Every structure is written in C-alpha cells, then in structure tokens.
C-alpha cells in the first residue's frame, strides 16, 4: 500500500533541499560578484558540497535489512521512483554529450532522442508491472522463477554483467573527466575522487540509499541543465521557454547552411580538406614505412633547430604526440582521414532526414536497438521492483519518462542554439573571435584554424567536440562562473547517479544471484547484506581501475550495451510474460543465439569492416534481436510445454490481485 504520510514527508524534505540548493547558488553568485571568489574555489564548493550532501543521504539511509538493501523496502512512491529512474538512466552522455551530437549531426542525432525515450513505453506496458507483481530482487531471479532451473539464471547473470560493467566503466571515466575539468586535477585523481563519491552513496544503504541520493541528484542535474539554456533563449527571443522558442534558430541555421553550400571561399577550404584526406590515405597505404619516415622527419627537424629556438617546444610536442607504433598510426590516421573527408563535403541540411535508403535503414535500426535496449537494461528494470504496488509500477514508468523528458525536450534547443552560434562565427575575422571560443580552444573542445589563410572564418574551418555545446552555453549566454560550475556539478550528478545504479546491479548479480542463489543458499540475511557490501567495494575499485586507462573503446562499448541488452534480455523478459507457451529451452536458445549473433556482428563490423545493409556496429543488435525471438519461438514449439506449475506462475504475475504462485518469492 502507498503510505500517504511517507509521501508527504518526502515532499517536504526534498522541497527544503531544493530551496537550500537555490539559496546556495544565490550566495555563491553574491560571493563571486561582491567578494570576488575564484573559480577554483567555487569549483571545490560544488564538487565537495554536492558529494557531502549525497554522502549524508547515504549515511541516513544505511541499512542491514535484505529487502531495504536490494529493493529499498519496496516503498518508493511512483513520483520519486520516476525521479530516481530518470537520474539512474541519464548518464554523463545524456547530460553533456547528447545535445552536442544533435548539434553536429542534425536529424540523424534524433535517433538518440527518440530511442532513449521510446523504450519507456515498452517498459511501462510490456515489462515493469509484471516484474513488480512477481516481486523479486533481480532479472536473473525472474528468469529462474519463470523458466525454472539454474541455467536461465546463469545466462541472465552473464548478460547482466556484460551489459552493466562496460556501462559502469564509462560512467567512472565520465566522473574522472568532469572532476578534473572542474578542479584542474589530473584525470587519475579525478577518477578516485569520483569513486569515493560513488561509494558514499551506495555502500552503507544499498538500493535504499541509492534511491534517495538519486532523487537528490536528479534535482541538481535538471536545474543545472535548464538554467543556461533558459537564459540564452530569453536573450535571443524574450521567451524563456527554450523548448518552444528554438524554431527561429532552426530557420537561421538552415538559411545559413544553404548560403554556404556554393560559397567560393568554403569550396576552397573543402578542397584543402580533400587534399589532406588523400595524403592521409596514401600514408595509411604506405604503413609501416610512412610511420618511420614521419618519425625521422620530426627527429631531424628537432636536431636541426638550435637549442634555444622557441620553435623547439612545438616540434617536441609534435614528436610526443606522434603515434607510438604503426598500429596506433593506422587508427589515428584513419580517424583523421574520415574527419577530413567529412569536412570536404558541403554541409548537409540540419533538419532533413538521411537522404539515402542506407542512411534511413541505419537510423531506424539504431532507434529500435536503443528503445529495446532501454527496456532490457538491468539497472533500469531493477528500479521498478522498488515501487509499493503494480499500479505504481505502471505510473512510475510515466513519471520516469516525464522527468527524463524535461531534459530531452531541452536538448534540441541546446543543439539548435549551439549550431546557430557556431554558424555566427562564419564570416568573422580571426582577430574578433568571442571570448568563449578562445577559452574552449585551449582545451581543444573547439578548433578554429585559418586553413586558406584569408583571415576570415569559414564553416569548414571550425571543428567542435560534442561536449562543447552544453559546457559553453553558460558563457555564450553571458552568465557568471557560478553557473558554469553548477553545470559541471550537474554533469557530475548525472554520472554519479548512473554509476551507483549500475554498481548495485552488478554487485547484486554476483552476491544475490550467483553466490546466494547458486552456490551457498544457507546464508543468513545479515551475511547476505555484508557480502553484497563487500562486493560493491570490489566492483567499484575494479571499475575505477579499468577506467584509469581511459580506453577509447569504452565509449563505443556503452553504445553496444544497448544492442546486447536488446538481443539478450529483452526477448526473454517479454516472451516470459506474454507467451505462456515459452519454455526453458526456447528462452535459453534464444538468449544464447541473440548474444552470439550480436557479438559476432559487432566484431566483424567494427574490426573487419564487414557491414550488412549499411548497419553500423552501434545498431548491431538488429540481427541478433529478431534471431533471439525467432529461435526462442521455434525451439519452444518443438519441445514440451512448460510444467503446470510454471504456467500457473505466468497467470499469477499477469493479474495484480493475489499472491504470486511458485517462483522464488520470499
């Protein structure tokens, strides 16, 4: 039952919290204006201030009870579960990266906007209410109860671990980058500051603590996301509602892009890019000789310069950045070649969909994978176990989408304004670049280079990093440093909250699903929680250790996690609920085939360059997912139906009333 008093108390606590947050913002603003507080001081206040608050919530929510540790005692009202799910779901990539990707890719980027929201319809209708009725702790719990036996559970554990761990490493990497940007600390130190921030939220109180900190983190991240773009929108149009006002920017962008298409100066720069791409292509074809030659040239150049020549530092840096091996050279040069090739083409319309069938197919496939993947991600599904009732699980999916949409409806406005500002640079002299360009050029998030030497900026001479769009908006809008610092704190909250949700999912999969359910079922409740906590620590440190290497592949792995989840867990869950005839053999065969096909296609398309129908690695689940459904249906029809007991189990999760029969209910 929903406890009204509890809801009222929660509302009061979080209202006071939000008020306090705004008061601190105002105080810091006054501090900056009147007392002249330094940016680094403000950065420290935000970093340690927010982490201290999350830690305090974590400590208040400490628990030793199994149900509180795993599912927050199943008393999280749907509104708050919606906020927690939104924070759990939106990572540093949603917060910082998504608007930038949209700004750079135009219509193509919308696959992420629709893909990362449409999955909630599937969750709310196909999965969440039934898993809540079942009322266990994890996805493997469900697979075990529904299909019977340890094998389905084990396949579920493997899929959960693959999907969640890569995602976790990416979040810790994100925390490290934000912490180092905010404070100017080295990246490795940032990772460990982040690690501490993650652990204080989850270690003492498990899911209960994670839930209540996620609500707090959501409030920080949404306010931080909305302030800069609202002010900017007001400056442009006098209308503060950026989600409605950005139409003018779309029009401006399209007009400007159309003008640039046939501009002779632009064509000149495009030719330069084209030549550069051809040079790189020749160099790649000539590996490894070209690598050795390039290295020697730089070394000779350095030798030829006298010891006190100011140019030495530049050449030394070039030599330091030079690829360490022919393999690294190949990767680096291929990427540079692709970038040059892109820049050599005339700019595409911002709002037009992909022009060719191949592009459209890839767009739709990616969108489908992101949707099904969202509905199959263990750390998101877990959140629906924490609501008090089935009814609340249904509405909770709606609240989650509502809170996510506050950010997702705003991202296209950020993107359009970012693109608009970028195009406004075109035609300006290099000597009159605004301050924000100079500032972000220092950290290489934007590069403006006079390639044709005419002193005027051409569109093809600008290249920006996606992260730049959200991070630079406070300065473009002319806001004080406090807001820029707060935006970084918002990004930090997004990364921390997602990392916490993942961490608890992984440690539960090992401690509850693997150890308690499969190896040692005689554990006492308090021992189970203790083992859960110990594993949490181990997994977090392991995640931070891997994140320390900052592998380039990590960003890609996260995108792949969606395809993997869509091709493995999603079909098994949906069929388990909606197809009574589905049995153990079908589900296992489906999951194994789905995972295998997806991983093989990922490998072939990413590392061997083999692409079917133009499908990119990021949408690779488009082959494994239907295969999973097909194989599962086929195998289940060729093998005996599930036993009476399991069919009764399916019935009992389908109706909200009554207790769940059979299964692993405790």
């Amino acid at each position, binding site marked *: 039952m929903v406890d009204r008093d509890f809801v009222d108390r929660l509302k009061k606590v979080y209202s006071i919290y939000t008020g306090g947050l705004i008061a601190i913002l105002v105080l810091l603003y006054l501090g900056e204006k009147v007392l002249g507080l330094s940016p680094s001081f403000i950065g420290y206040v935000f970093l340690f201030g927010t982490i201290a608050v999350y830690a305090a919530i974590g400590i208040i929510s400490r628990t030793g009870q199994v149900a509180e540790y795993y599912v927050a005692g199943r008393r999280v009202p749907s509104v708050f579960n919606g906020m927690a799910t939104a924070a759990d779901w939106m990572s540093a990539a949603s917060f910082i990266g998504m608007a930038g990707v949209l700004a750079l890719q135009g*219509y193509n980027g*919308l696959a992420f*906007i*629709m893909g990362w*929201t*449409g999955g*909630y*319809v*599937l969750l*709310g*209708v*196909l999965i969440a*209410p039934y898993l809540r009725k079942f009322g266990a702790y994890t996805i493997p719990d469900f697979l075990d109860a529904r299909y019977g036996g340890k094998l389905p559970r084990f396949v579920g554990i493997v899929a959960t671990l693959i999907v969640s761990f890569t995602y976790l490493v990416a979040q810790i990497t994100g925390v490290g980058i934000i912490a180092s940007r905010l404070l100017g600390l080295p990246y490795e130190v940032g990772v460990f500051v982040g690690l501490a921030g993650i652990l204080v939220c989850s270690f003492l109180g498990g899911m209960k603590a994670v839930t209540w900190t996620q609500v707090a983190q959501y409030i920080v991240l949404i306010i931080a996301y909305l302030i800069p773009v609202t002010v900017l929108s007001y400056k442009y149009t006098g209308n503060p509602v950026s*989600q*409605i006002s*950005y*139409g*003018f920017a*779309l*029009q401006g962008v399209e007009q400007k892009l159309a003008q640039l298409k046939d501009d002779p100066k632009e064509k000149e720069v495009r030719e330069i890019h084209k030549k550069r791409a051809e040079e790189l292509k020749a160099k790649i074809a000539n590996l490894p000789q070209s690598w050795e030659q390039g290295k020697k040239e730089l070394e000779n150049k350095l030798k030829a310069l006298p010891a006190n020549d100011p140019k030495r530092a530049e050449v030394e840096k070039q030599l330091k950045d030079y690829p360490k091996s022919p393999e690294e050279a190949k990767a680096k040069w291929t990427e540079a070649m692709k970038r040059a090739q892109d820049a050599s083409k005339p700019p595409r319309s911002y*709002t*037009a*969909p992909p022009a060719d069938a191949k592009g*459209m197919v890839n*767009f*739709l496939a990616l*969108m*489908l994978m992101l*949707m099904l993947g969202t509905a199959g991600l263990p750390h998101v599904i877990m959140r629906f176990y924490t609501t008090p*009732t*089935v*009814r609340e699980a*249904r*509405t909770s*999916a*709606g609240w989650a*989408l*509502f809170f996510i*949409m506050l950010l*997702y*409806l705003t991202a*296209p406005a950020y993107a359009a304004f970012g693109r608009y500002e970028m195009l406004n640079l075109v035609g300006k002299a290099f000597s009159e670049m605004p301050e924000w360009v100079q500032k972000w050029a220092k950290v290489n998030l934007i590069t403006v280079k006079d390639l044709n030497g005419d002193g005027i900026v051409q569109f093809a001479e600008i290249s920006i990093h996606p992260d730049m769009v959200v991070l630079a908006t406070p300065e473009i809008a002319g806001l004080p440093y406090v807001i820029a610092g707060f935006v970084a704190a918002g990004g930090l909250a997004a990364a921390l909250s997602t990392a916490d949700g993942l961490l608890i999912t992984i440690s539960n999969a090992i401690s509850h699903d693997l150890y308690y359910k499969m190896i040692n079922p005689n554990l006492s409740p308090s021992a189970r929680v203790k083992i859960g906590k110990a594993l949490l620590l181990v997994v977090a440190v392991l995640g931070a250790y891997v994140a320390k290497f900052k592998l380039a592949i990590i960003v890609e792995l996260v995108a792949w996690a969606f395809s993997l989840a869509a091709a493995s867990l999603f079909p098994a869950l949906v069929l388990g609920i*909606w197809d009574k005839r589905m049995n153990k053999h079908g589900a296992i065969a489906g999951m194994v085939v789905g995972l295998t096909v997806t991983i093989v296609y990922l490998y072939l398309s990413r590392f061997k360059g083999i692409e079917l129908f133009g499908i990119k690695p990021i949408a690779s689940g488009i082959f494994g997912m239907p295969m999973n459904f097909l194989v599962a249906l086929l195998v289940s029809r060729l093998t005996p139906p599930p036993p009476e007991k399991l069919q009764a189990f399916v*019935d009992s999760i*389908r*109706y*909200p*009333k*009554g207790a769940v029969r059979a299964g692993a209910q405790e």
Partner: protein
Amino acid sequence: MLSKEELEGYWRENRKLMWIVLVVWALVSYGAALISGWLNRIVLLGFPLGYYMGAQGALLVFLLLIVFYAKRMDETDRKYRVEED
C-alpha cells in the same frame, strides 16, 4: 477467486490495449521518421514538422501513451476485480 473465463477476458483486454499502444508508438516514431522529408515541408512556428516529431513530438506522444495505458488498466483491474488487495 475469479473464474478462468473472467481471467482470460481480462488478459484479452490487456492484450488489445497493448497492441493499440504499440501501434501508435511505432507510427509516431518509425512512421514519422520514414515520411519526415515530406513532413518537413510543413513549418509551424519555425519548426519543420518532420524534425519536430523526432525532436519533441514523438516524446510527448510516448508520455501520453504510458498515462493512457496506466489509466485504462486501472479501470480494467477494477472491472474484473483483480486490483491489488
């Protein structure tokens, strides 16, 4: 306890509702994307409609769909008296 027929009736209604929701879900996302080039010719308040559907329109429909489904299922629960105790 409910009779088998009643339970089956409940599930049939749920399944029908599920299909309605999924068809609309697919139309506003995949359907709209397929014809977005054509929709873009309609411009409202500066927004080309095809782009707008992908950026915001589909999302708003998604939210309405979840709310609609939750409301209707509430009613169905009550009609078949299978709401939670």
